[in-house]
């Protein structure tokens, strides 16, 4: 959301009591981006405007709707152009329809014998979209496995014998599910570098399992290249920071020893 909002004027929104909206539905620019996030696209916004005014979709007053729609798009354009692209396209369409309606009607009939209304195509799209919007809600409300009911599969010998299969992608999916549940504000990024360090931490702890002191230098394998040495070093620092290992050195330049914290206990 942040990308489509200037943080500075946002305070203004908070500062001003926007409780009553005038008839033309003017929305302050800073709130607009927030507001637009609630829409799935230009059709959704257009539908909303029409529904808000309690207009019959089949009889859209093009001039009013176009003007209002343009107000939105103009506001949007000033804050974020790429988001506005699809909305601009719709604006162009609205204006085209409007201008065609201003032209003298060509008394040209189509196959069904009706005079072509420039709004027809837009109306068709709006109705189709709204129909799908309602359908989406219907599908959402249907009882769903895992949310509204569970499938039964009790323990059997066969099931006990076979071990579940796990793919790396399943782990990622599990993690993403976690992040989604944890909420929008917490961001868990684990970079490749951090992972390597985490892995090295595990390996070092493993090497220290005996509880004995190991010499600092033993933990490094120069054959694996400089990145590996750096990662190992970072891992040791991280282990020390998280107080998982003790690092001791009796005097300057004497060997450095590492062991598990409280290995003697």
């Amino acid at each position, binding site marked *: 959301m942040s990308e489509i909002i200037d943080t500075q004027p946002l305070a203004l929104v908070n500062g001003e009591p926007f*409780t009553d909206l005038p008839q033309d539905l003017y929305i302050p620019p800073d709130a607009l981006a927030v507001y637009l996030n609630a829409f799935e696209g230009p*059709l959704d916004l257009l539908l909303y405007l029409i529904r808000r005014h309690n207009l019959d979709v089949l009889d859209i007053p093009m001039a009013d709707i176009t003007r209002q729609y343009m107000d939105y798009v103009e506001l949007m354009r000033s804050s974020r152009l790429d988001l506005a692209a*699809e909305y601009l396209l719709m604006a162009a369409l609205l204006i085209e329809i409007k201008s065609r309606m201003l032209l003298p009607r060509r008394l040209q009939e189509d196959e069904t014998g009706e005079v072509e209304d420039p709004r027809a195509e837009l109306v068709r799209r709006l109705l189709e979209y709204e129909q799908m919007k309602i*359908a989406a809600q219907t*599908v959402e409300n249907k009882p769903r496995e895992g949310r509204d*009911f569970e499938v039964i599969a009790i323990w059997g010998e066969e099931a006990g014998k076979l071990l579940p299969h796990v793919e790396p992608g399943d782990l990622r999916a599990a993690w993403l599910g976690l992040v989604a549940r944890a909420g929008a504000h917490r961001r868990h990024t684990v970079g490749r570098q951090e992972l390597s360090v985490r892995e090295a931490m595990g390996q070092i702890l493993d090497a220290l399992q005996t509880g004995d002191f190991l010499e600092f230098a033993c933990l490094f394998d120069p054959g694996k290249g400089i990145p590996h040495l750096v990662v190992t070093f970072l891992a040791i620092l991280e282990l020390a920071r998280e107080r998982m290992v003790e690092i001791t050195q009796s005097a300057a330049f004497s060997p450095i020893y590492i062991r598990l914290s409280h290995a003697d206990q």
Partner: protein
Amino acid sequence: MPINNISELKIVLETALLSSREPLLINDMQRLFEEELSIEFLRRALDELRDDWQGRGVELALVASGWRFQTRPEYQHFINRLNPEKPPKYSRAVMETLAIIAYKQPVTRGDIEEIRGVTVNTQIIKTLEERDWIKVVGHRDVPGRPALYATTKQFLSDLNLRALDELPPLVELGSLVDPNPHSGELNLAELIEQASDDSPV
């Protein structure tokens, strides 16, 4: 161990259905027995079994991929208390895409974009594919040969449906006018709330 009567048959069917991870078709159930049992006999046993489970927290249901035991939604709140984790809620974009595929299948991504008026994020398609609710069933014979998507049996089963035609019919919107005429005085918070609320009507 031959099956002598319907009670014995019901016990075996119940055991198999309770322990199977996947729904069972009548064909599958015929394979449970050494002797050949007629479909009518199995069908009758299943109907009786379904009646036997009336009034319990678990029911025997027939869905797209076969017969299965499942909990009744009325008992979900007990189970949820045991397991406080909530399954993810899909965004409106995902649900709209799913609805279009379900009702208009087979469709290409372009078809979906045409209806929604916005580009369809690849991630949306992926999410639905990973859930095993949609799949590619072919390609349209136009330049670029775009993939045609359709819903899966899994989708129907997960929504407790036997077939696509059990989805509620689409609402005809010929002259639909907002049933909630607004008062004229609007409040921004309310506006946003309404707009972010999923219910369209």
